[in-house]
């Protein structure tokens, strides 16, 4: 009987101990985040510093965890429970429920709620024809001008990644950079050998079209700019078009699914060039334009409204950490898909 009494206390004891431990870890996490927030307000920036947790994350089956999360959040919530679940989510992640386009009962699952649209007029598009607008809601992490296509973007102080590793080595950008050098040296035979060498590659074909070539040649000497925007879990997660532009190609990197929060950017190297991401490249009136949508463990899915059949966060067939990216050229070649400033373009989703 003492044995069975011992067992009777085992389960509740273990449960209480686990909850206590999780509580302590969460408190510690809140304390760390508060410290980072205070430091940021003082203008102090933490340097890049890998830690044990980052190494540990590399061993975890993050893609499976992400897919299980997607399965759970896709489960249908009973209608009577929906307002309570979505209000709890909104409270935890500071979402603004007033802006949701539909009554809360209409969202069948947390995943449906997460990718909600907003009521008409909630996001007015800046009317200035010379403005470039934000494609998402979020926090500005970094922005600036780059020397050239080979330039580096700082992930955090002390660690940078190259634009070509983010967009891919076959990026239209590298071709424009080449044309810039050709334009400078205006060496004609170099251009014809270039055509021979890369007759097959898509961007040479797409550049054959007059519209694209005139856009590229009209702006021989432009600056190259970038902007990095972080979306918190409670933010509106649809992506809109920043300008009027033609989307010529989509490039999908299956990659990894590390978390993308503030701590991860300080401790995991090459985060943005290792994680699963979808890159859209094309041309606007000033030249090259690209948007890279980068997934994370909890938000591993990227849905394109211009290519609904694209699936991301697929179960990994091979254990290759980095498969080559998969390109798709949008028809008609050289013109692609035309989007107006503010048009809905894509959406992140959970799992």
């Amino acid at each position: 009987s003492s044995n069975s009494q011992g067992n009777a206390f085992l389960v509740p004891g273990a449960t209480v101990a686990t909850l206590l431990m999780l509580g302590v870890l969460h408190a510690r996490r809140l304390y760390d985040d508060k410290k980072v927030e205070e430091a940021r307000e003082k203008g102090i920036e933490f340097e890049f510093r890998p830690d044990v947790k980052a190494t540990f994350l590399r061993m975890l089956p993050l893609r499976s965890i992400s897919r299980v999360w997607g399965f759970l959040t896709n489960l249908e919530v009973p209608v009577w429970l929906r307002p309570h679940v979505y209000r709890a989510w909104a409270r935890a992640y500071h979402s603004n429920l007033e802006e949701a386009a539909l009554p809360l009962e209409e969202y069948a699952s947390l995943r449906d709620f997460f990718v909600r649209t907003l009521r008409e007029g909630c996001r007015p598009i800046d009317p200035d024809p010379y403005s470039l607008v934000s494609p998402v809601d979020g926090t500005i992490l970094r922005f600036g001008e780059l020397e050239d296509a080979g330039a580096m973007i700082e992930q955090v102080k002390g660690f940078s990644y190259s634009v070509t590793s983010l967009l891919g080595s076959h990026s239209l950008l590298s071709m424009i950079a080449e044309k810039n050098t050709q334009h400078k040296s205006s060496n004609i035979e170099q251009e014809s050998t270039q055509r021979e060498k890369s007759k097959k590659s898509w961007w040479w074909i797409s550049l054959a079209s007059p519209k694209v070539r005139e856009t590229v040649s009209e702006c021989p000497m432009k600056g190259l700019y970038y902007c990095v925007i972080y979306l918190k879990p409670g933010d509106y997660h649809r992506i809109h078009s920043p300008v009027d532009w033609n989307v010529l190609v989509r490039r999908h990197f299956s990659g990894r699914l590390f978390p993308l929060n503030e701590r991860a950017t300080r401790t995991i190297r090459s985060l943005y060039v290792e994680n699963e991401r979808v890159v859209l490249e094309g041309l606007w009136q000033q030249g090259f334009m690209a948007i890279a949508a980068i997934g994370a463990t909890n938000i591993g899915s990227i849905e394109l409204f211009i290519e609904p059949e694209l699936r991301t966060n697929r179960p990994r067939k091979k254990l290759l950490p980095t498969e080559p990216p998969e390109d798709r050229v949008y028809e008609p070649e050289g013109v692609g898909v035309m989007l107006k400033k503010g048009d809905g373009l894509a959406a992140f989703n959970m799992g």
Partner: protein
Amino acid sequence: STVVLVFQAPTSKSPKNTDASKFRFSIRRGDRIRVGQALGR
């Protein structure tokens, strides 16, 4: 999740462009931004 924009725009480095046509950001690091708000002009 994170979105990275990379784009060409007029810069004051090229001889043809006057400073007036150089692209300028209208944001600061750490700013909260919403869809449709200008990042620069």
